[in-house]
């Protein structure tokens, strides 16, 4: 067994003013595993992901990436963010760059890769999201599903130790979610370490190694997918799931 998890979260707390959004969250994400996070709107899922890569500063608690504590000076935070690929609900592609431009930007500017190498890498990453032919397009010309897959490729191009997905399919039309979920399933079976915040219960059940149910800023239920979905111990989790699954 691998002793050092890719991500370890210890007693993480976050308040916005008087509003306590995370109230002591702890969990591990072992290397190569997929953790799905479910929970009602406002339960703190996005805030948790954003605290992990320090887009938000936690009020208390620790996050360890590969054993190293996240935090410190801005330059340390930037360095550690390279190892965490983030995929947003709103895609957040850079509209003034082509698809290729979006993907090679960070390898070149942040990793200091040569352009030629970066282009080869980008080709590889775009192939993984099945968008090899769209490299020269601008994001505005793509469908939502394609944009999200480019965003995944952009994150993969940094060859991160783990990927963080924040509701990657929630702003997509239903007929476009599958192409994104397919890519994510492939990443999962390739052994990519992932935390996935999602409302796609089928995906969470089939593709993840563990499922966390967040309620009011705390982990209310946690376990293997079949256990959380099949026989939830918490009443709240049961209610949440019965609403989602009906």
């Amino acid at each position, binding site marked *: 067994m691998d002793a050092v998890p890719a991500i370890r979260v210890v007693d993480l707390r976050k308040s916005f003013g008087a509003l306590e959004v995370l109230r002591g969250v702890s969990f591990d994400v072992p290397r190569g595993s997929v953790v799905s996070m479910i929970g009602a709107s406002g339960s703190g899922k996005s805030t948790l992901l954003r605290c992990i890569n320090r887009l938000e500063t936690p009020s208390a608690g620790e996050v360890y990436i590969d054993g190293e504590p996240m935090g410190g000076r801005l330059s340390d935070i930037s360095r550690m963010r390279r190892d965490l690929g983030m995929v947003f609900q709103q895609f957040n592609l850079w509209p003034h760059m082509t698809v290729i431009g979006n993907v090679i930007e960070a390898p070149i500017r*942040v990793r200091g890769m040569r352009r030629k190498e970066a282009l080869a890498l980008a080709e590889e990453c775009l192939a993984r999201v099945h968008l090899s032919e769209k490299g020269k397009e601008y994001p505005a010309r793509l469908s939502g599903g394609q944009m999200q897959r480019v965003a995944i490729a952009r994150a993969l191009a940094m060859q991160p130790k783990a990927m963080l997905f924040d509701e990657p399919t929630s702003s997509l039309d239903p007929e476009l979610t599958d192409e994104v979920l397919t890519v994510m399933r492939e990443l999962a079976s390739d052994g990519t370490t992932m935390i996935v915040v999602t409302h796609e219960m089928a995906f969470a059940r089939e593709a993840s190694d563990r499922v966390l149910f967040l309620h009011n800023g705390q982990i209310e239920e946690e376990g293997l997918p079949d256990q959380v979905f099949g026989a939830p111990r918490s009443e709240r989790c049961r209610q949440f799931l019965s609403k989602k699954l009906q």
Partner: protein
Amino acid sequence: MSNWERLVWNQRGLLWQGLTVTVEICLLAFALAIVGGLVLCLVRLHVRPLRPVAVALIEFFRATPIFVQLMWVNYVWPELFGWPNSFFTSGWVALGLQSSGYLAETFRAGIEAVPRGHREAGYSVGMSSFQVYRRIVLPETLLTVAPSIVNQFTVIVKSSTLVSVITVPDLMLQAMKLVNVWYEPIEVLTATAIIYIALVFLVSSAGKALADFHRRRFGLDSA
């Protein structure tokens, strides 16, 4: 021989000379306005100690009538700074300063319109704040504000007629000279108006085309 031929066509050399001066002045003023506007905006947003100075300048440039500003640069600056030393320079500097005040606000609106997520996407791949600014915020801002910047050029063209007051030989001044020689204002001034309309129309069409292009290609609405 018609008045049009005698007063306008036969004087086309003079009018053309005036037009080139007008265009030169406007281009110089435009360049100053863009650079000045960007600097004022960046100082306002990011250089805390100088912020009040930038705000004061922006407000001053925007609130002063262009005529007052022209007189101010032309008569006060040489006393204070020993510069500008020509009417021509005073002319484009005053025009440029006024527009820099407006463009500073345009740039600010553009920067604030860049979605937070675009910046966060940069941070989350490990870019520094400076890289995020230089590679994401500024280029995206320039694209969204480009059409408004072009439209500011039309304001400069229209205001530029006032430099004739300090005897800069622009199109307006040449036209007035012709009027004062022949005392036949109708054709000359009508022709002059048409030239200005054409110029403004040309520039604002370019602005519209640019806005359409940016919307189609980048999905960016102009700020």
